[in-house]
């Protein structure tokens, strides 16, 4: 990949015009996921749960959740799974290369409203990526929040993301429980889907907010389990993945009934989407 020195044309104001973000670090996390640290041309003020449209000329663009905490600096961290042509090309990038980005877009998690609450994070696979932004934002203000619990389900132990950070978060007082679908020899942790971790958990329904990020199939069962813990729809937040082409509420791809995932989402409260068929 060539490196791009010049900034974009200063007059450019089309909402489709991306800005060049410089890759500072590109680290392989697992077989499929790479972690990127980027420097944006201008400071970025995002809310955890928001996303960028990330692209390479000739390959197109895709929505990618921001993985770094709220910061107000030029630094952005992304974790990208290789699933197609664009992400395959992105995985070939290294330090000094340029990614073209637009955003941040969408509505993130209402972090301020979650202060003083116990937070129950439920992540499935790559769902930990947007959640990491929220977790790290909260850990930066650890005393503003109650108990922090992370339930993290992955297919197999080598798909666990941010292994070192998980240890740090534990040291910062987070209760972390991991489960795998398919254990390897030597795995001595939990086995089974993530809902198996919810049953034994003590949840104070008067002050707990649940944050769910994972594949569609996970939501259905996790929501049922959380219902058994008496959590209300207004206290459950989830981030919905959809195909997106513009990020501007125009192209129509991310529409879920009358809601656009790129405008009213991707983070929704369960109460807001429960009545929308096709949402979950």
């Amino acid at each position, binding site marked *: 990949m060539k490196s791009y020195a010049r900034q974009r044309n200063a007059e450019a104001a*089309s909402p489709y015009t991306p800005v060049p973000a410089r890759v500072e670090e590109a680290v392989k996390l697992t077989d499929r996921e790479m972690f990127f640290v980027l420097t944006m041309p201008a400071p970025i003020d995002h809310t955890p749960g928001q996303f960028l449209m990330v692209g390479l000329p000739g390959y197109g663009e895709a929505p990618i959740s921001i993985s770094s905490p709220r910061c107000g600096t030029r630094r952005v961290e992304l974790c990208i799974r290789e699933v197609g042509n664009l992400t395959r090309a992105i995985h070939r990038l290294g330090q000094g290369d340029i990614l073209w980005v637009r955003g941040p877009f969408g509505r993130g998690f209402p972090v301020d409203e979650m202060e003083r609450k116990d937070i129950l994070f439920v992540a499935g696979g790559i769902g930990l990526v947007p959640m990491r932004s929220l977790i790290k934002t909260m850990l930066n203000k650890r005393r503003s929040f109650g108990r922090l619990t992370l339930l993290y389900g992955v297919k197999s132990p080598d798909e666990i993301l941010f292994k070192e950070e998980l240890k740090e978060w534990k040291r910062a007082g987070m209760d972390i429980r991991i489960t795998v679908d398919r254990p390897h020899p030597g795995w001595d942790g939990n086995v089974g889907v993530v809902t198996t971790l919810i049953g034994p958990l003590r949840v104070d329904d008067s002050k707990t907010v649940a944050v769910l990020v994972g594949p569609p199939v996970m939501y259905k069962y996790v929501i049922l389990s959380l219902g058994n813990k008496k959590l209300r729809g207004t206290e459950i937040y989830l981030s919905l*993945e959809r195909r997106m082409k513009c990020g*501007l509420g125009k192209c129509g791809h991310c529409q879920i009934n009358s809601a656009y995932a790129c405008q009213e989402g991707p983070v929704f409260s369960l109460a807001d989407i429960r009545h929308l068929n096709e949402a979950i």
Partner: protein
Amino acid sequence: MGTMEIITRKDFRRLVEGLLGDYTLYGPVEKEGFPAFARIERFSQLRLSRTPTHLSAKEFLFPPRETLLRFDLKNGDVREVVDAQNQAIIGLHPCDIHAVNLLDRVFSYGTPDRNYLARRKRTVIIGTECTPDEYCFCSSLHTMTVDRGFDLFLHETERGFIVRTGTKRGRRLLERYTSATKAEKADLERLERMVERKEKMFRTRLDAEPSQLPLIYRGADSSPVWDRIGRVCYGCGSCNHVCPTCYCFDVKDDITLDLEDATRYRVWDGCTLEDFAKVAGGHNFRKARSARLRHRFNRKFRYLADRFKGLFCVGCGRCSRTCLVRINISEVTNEIIRETKER
């Protein structure tokens, strides 16, 4: 309504020839026996048509393929492309103008879409009167007449045209190219009679008021109609293609063989096509054709109604007219209305 004047057929010809000089002009021509919108280069090509065209005129405001950005890969630069020239579209029927008004709302909603809006601003719209065929049902959606969204609207009479002026630009065109005279009371009455006559011609009607349709559709998510039409639908996307208010698009990239330049462009997309709601990794949020059709019908009558303050069906009947397996939007809607009344 704005002001009303009378022009003669000669005036009309002068108006069209004036437009030909100053604008790229599009209007209905005869193509293999059918009316179709096309570029007009001589007055004689223009065939004002009272019957609807198969394709809408949206392509002149929202091209099927439109470049958004050009990347200069050698220098690491990107430039936006906004391609807007003075153009005029003549021969839009009231439903088509209602559709343009909806597209205007869509593309100015939230973050404005400069590509569409720049082109729209430089587009003169001249409406003409129509006669409904068996698929038209605009009278049921209150889109049979229109009073904004055009520069001029021409109602053909035996002697010439009654002209309604919708904008200052329309007024200037009228003054510049014609010797319009003030309409008299008799002309206004004639216009009213024409509207009344047109209303009586509709063979297709919806059995509910447009304001009731969002709620009726809301109650129809599990109607058997979706499976029934889903079973015959080819998922070909023709309904999206011909619809004057379908505006969904895909964004793609092209790169030159020397890898020095790339373009990012948008192309029309359609929610009835299989891949429309498919995400990387393969999950398809609307895998079944029945789910995609339900989505499309709901987009026309319910999903967008609140956000854009209006239904996204203008009753032009194009989707029904073009559907290979005869899925008919007014029949489906009437079936849903019937189910609702029976509940």
